[in-house]
């Protein structure tokens, strides 16, 4: 792993002049050919981190090692890293080909060679034959592709993408997600991708870093992040979830919704206050006739058809739980709820637990 690392961020801090801490000591290793996504709500520092790597923001302290060398003092134009900006930042007075050829032209490369390379790049992003078109005549998706081609023609080892799909409509966004993934695989370039869209992050990335308030809360594969969130914030941010306050009775036994559940987690200490995440699809509803004992009961309060599944809200005491199931239960039905031990994710309390718990409790109103 160690010699596979291409970019290494070490204890990076960015404090703005007004005292706002944009990044509070972030460390991150990124491997060759990896697709890493920085995911978080606006203001979490993900764009600041990207801008530091690109050279557009000067960190207050910390290191950014590129192939083992500190590049913090290099201006953007001396870094072998290219960026795709949120609103593409294409040069409006140049046509498509001139935009793509901007980097090679600056380096004084052979015009004919560049022209060939430009055509090859445009073909790769699906814009073959668009060379002479004006930027203003392109659609958002096409501009996006030009921006990618303009960056890739410089053969960077690392490509930074700052919410590049945010301005596109849903359908186009899905298309571009696949397209980007394909380009990354074919080109073998490391992608660092910034987004606030968790679905986007989960579908495209090799690894996801979930950020909040200038820190990385959790770094892992999309499966890890989804199935084993390490804090209420991550659980809440990624996908739909039920987040509940609970108590660890002892290792492998947790109490919430006034019932005790066997689980797979331990090491929290006896009677420790914890947060519990149960994904809506992991809550199984049983009829009252089911012989299962010692599980919470509830009443179906609402039922929505969502295409692939039904979404139900089930009230149990003070809590309202979100349930996804392919099986509809009419509103008013009394049900028993069952959760498999491996589907219960137990987490330490964190500073944002109160917020998240309150929001989830508000669903009950």
């Amino acid at each position, binding site marked *: 792993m160690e010699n596979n690392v291409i970019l290494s961020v070490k204890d990076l801090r960015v404090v703005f002049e007004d005292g706002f801490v944009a990044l509070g000591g972030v460390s991150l290793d990124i491997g060759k050919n990896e697709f890493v996504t920085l995911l978080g709500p606006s203001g979490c520092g993900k764009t600041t981190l990207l801008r530091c790597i690109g*050279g*557009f923001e000067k960190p207050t302290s910390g290191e950014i090692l590129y192939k083992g060398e500190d590049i913090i003092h290099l201006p*953007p*134009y001396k870094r072998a890293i*290219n960026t795709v900006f949120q609103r593409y*930042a*294409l*040069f409006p007075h140049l046509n498509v080909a001139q935009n793509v050829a*901007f980097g090679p032209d600056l380096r004084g490369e052979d015009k004919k060679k560049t022209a060939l390379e430009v055509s090859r790049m445009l073909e790769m992003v699906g814009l073959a034959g668009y060379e002479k078109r004006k930027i203003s005549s392109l659609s958002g998706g096409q501009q996006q592709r030009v921006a990618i081609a303009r*960056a890739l023609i410089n053969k960077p080892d690392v490509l930074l993408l700052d919410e590049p799909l945010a301005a596109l409509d849903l359908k186009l966004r899905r298309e571009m997600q696949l397209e980007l993934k394909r380009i990354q695989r074919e080109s073998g370039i490391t992608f660092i991708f910034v987004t606030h869209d968790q679905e986007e992050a989960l579908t495209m990335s090799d690894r996801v870093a979930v950020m909040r308030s200038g820190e990385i809360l959790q770094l892992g594969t999309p499966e890890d992040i989804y199935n084993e969130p390490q804090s209420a914030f991550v659980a809440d941010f990624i996908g739909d979830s039920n987040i509940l306050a609970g108590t660890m009775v002892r290792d492998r036994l947790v109490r919430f919704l006034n019932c005790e559940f066997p689980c797979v987690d331990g090491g929290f200490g006896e009677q420790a206050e914890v947060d519990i995440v149960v994904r809506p699809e992991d809550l199984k509803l049983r009829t009252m006739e089911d012989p299962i004992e010692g599980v919470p009961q509830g009443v179906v309060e609402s039922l929505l058809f969502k295409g692939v599944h039904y979404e139900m809200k089930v009230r149990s005491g003070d809590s309202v739980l979100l349930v996804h199931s392919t099986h509809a239960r009419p509103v008013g039905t009394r049900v028993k709820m069952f959760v498999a031990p491996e589907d219960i994710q137990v987490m330490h309390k964190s500073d944002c637990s109160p917020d998240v718990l309150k929001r989830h409790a508000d669903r009950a109103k």
Partner: protein
Amino acid sequence: MNWKRRIRKAYIGLIMAFLYAPIVMLILYSFNNSKSRAQWGGFTLKWYRELFTDEAIMGALGTTLSVGFLAAAISTVLGTFGAIALFQMKRRPRQAMMSIVNLPMLNSEVVTGVSLMLLYAMAHIQLGYVTLLLSHIAFCVPYVVLSVMPKLRQLDPNLAEAAQDLGATPLQGFFRVILPDIMPGVFSGFIMALTMSIDDFVVSFFTTGSGVSNLSITIYTMAKRGISPKINALSTIIFVCVFVLLIGINLQDLKKDDGSGKKVEKVRIPY
């Protein structure tokens, strides 16, 4: 309904007549072979001949043009970089600087003229061509800033960064990306500065000296003494030049809008 429309058109016609009548008169009488305006003495070009041999007027014309183009060029450079400097400042200092830069536009020309004259007096600079040029630059720069600033605001905020990202130094980025993009603003700033400079009398009056006088000052002294048909000839030439220049500048824009009824016509007229 039709008569209302006719009234509206007639009104515009009347205003046009008011604005053009004196100019038409000047042009007509510039060909009049009689020194008095009271009678028509036949067609002649002698006033034009006299005009071109009048060293005072020709010298003044030269001064006006050289000061105009120099002041416009220098203030365009200064104003463009100034606008960028202002644009990059933090909010508070920017607002403070903006109010300072706007002062000459808020102030009357008399105050600007007098204040610059006192400045040169304090610095013991002899009034003449240099002070005239400096003063014209001084009152032109704010207009350039004014016309470049909106273009900067319209810029994609990542444009300069994108250029640097692709390997351009900040200066390369400026000349290859930023400047072409804000060019319309820079150009209209230049034209505005040129017009302001050529048109100016008041500031020039206070800040020139030692025999250096531009067209405005020369006409002022001549007009106080009485009217000379040579000035009619001069006016005619200037009017024709301006007419050709303005039509030329705007012809392309007007052509572009041909046919497309909905598109709002844009005309570059500094005012």
